[in-house]
């Protein structure tokens, strides 16, 4: 399993389940520090017809993090070769509004709130 982790967060690609799971509190400084995560997300699209981004355990995401996620969603939309499902949680306040905004970037994006 391919994974990145740091203080209070983990991002891992479960290739068997076609899922990238992001959990904990992501508050990296600026888009450059999000580079490795961005690369992992991009490469997860390679050769896949569907991909799930599981955010149900992502308690906190700062503004650079949501910008990274937005750019990834735009990239997935432009590549137009992989169906994207994002799973969020109703218990995490920021996810309601922000994830719905991602759907505006990619109307084909499927959102699922647990």
């Amino acid at each position: 399993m391919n994974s990145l982790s740091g203080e209070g967060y983990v991002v891992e690609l479960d290739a068997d389940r076609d899922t990238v799971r992001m959990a904990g509190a992501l508050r990296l400084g600026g888009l450059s520090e999000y580079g490795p995560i961005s690369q992992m997300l991009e490469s997860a699209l390679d050769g896949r017809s569907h991909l799930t981004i599981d955010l149900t355990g992502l308690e906190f995401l700062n503004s650079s993090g949501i910008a990274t996620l937005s750019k990834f969603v735009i990239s997935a939309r432009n590549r137009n070769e992989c169906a994207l499902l994002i799973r969020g949680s109703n218990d995490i306040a920021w996810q309601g509004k922000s994830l719905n905004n991602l759907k505006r970037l990619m109307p084909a994006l499927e959102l699922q709130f647990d």
Partner: protein
Amino acid sequence: MPASTPYVQVLDIEQTLAELNATVEALRQERDDLEIALTTAVEHGDAIEQQLETANRQLQGEVRERRMIEKQLRHLVTTITQKSRDLEMVLQTITEHADQIDLHWLARYIESENAARHDALTGLANRRLLDETMEREWARARRQQQPLAMLLCDVDNFKPYNDCYGHPTGDECLKRLAGMLKGALRREGDLVARYGGEEFILLLPNTDETGAMRVAHGIQQTLSELDIRHERAPLGRITFSIGVAATIPDSDDEGELFAEVDRRLYLAKQQGRNRIVGSTDQTTGEDIHERGARGDQDDSAGPEHRVP
């Protein structure tokens, strides 16, 4: 009729031939000219046609090129428009996300501020909030020359209570007492704080000692009605010793009011517990029972007993 001479006839014929030759020559010349003109016209036409064809080819090439550029521009405009829309959306997403995060931190901040100023067990104000409020109210009372009253309530025989019933029950008892003391507050500016393990302070702005004594009596009355069982206490129930003091501040040392209620609480303890000690008044628990039995409502705390 005279006949023409043969010489004349020959001359005429030669003349006629010469004229004809001249005419033929002229016609030949004319024909040559026309041929040259025709050739020139044809060649010119061919040249023009070729030139036009070249120009047409160039124009068509230019049209194709321009159409290609137009297509590229349209594509560029579409791409830029899409990127612009994406950027607007990303900006909106980030902005709204940042707002959400602000709210998240604000809630955490309020929570931690609240936790920093309240006692975790009882939810009452803690020493920090009491000190801050005291500093503010002391200064206000001094400025407005209004009395500021304080009650220091200590649970009698609380250690034996904990020993007898265990600490969890002791904690429950403190929570009930805290709820009861909160209920004794009548004014918005009044504060009740957990001062120590089993000590509580009530801070009553714009209240003189008479008003504060009535609040204290009301507390004792309610406590007797609560009747929290304590088999190792003389009355078989939880009781309070209460020190009461009020003053119109004339210095910036708010510690003097703390010291005074503390001193009076000590007196109450010394005199046998379950009593209120103010500057002159002393009341035992038994007295309270008697008043309660008589249904005397004068002991109930209320704003009407205090300085308006």
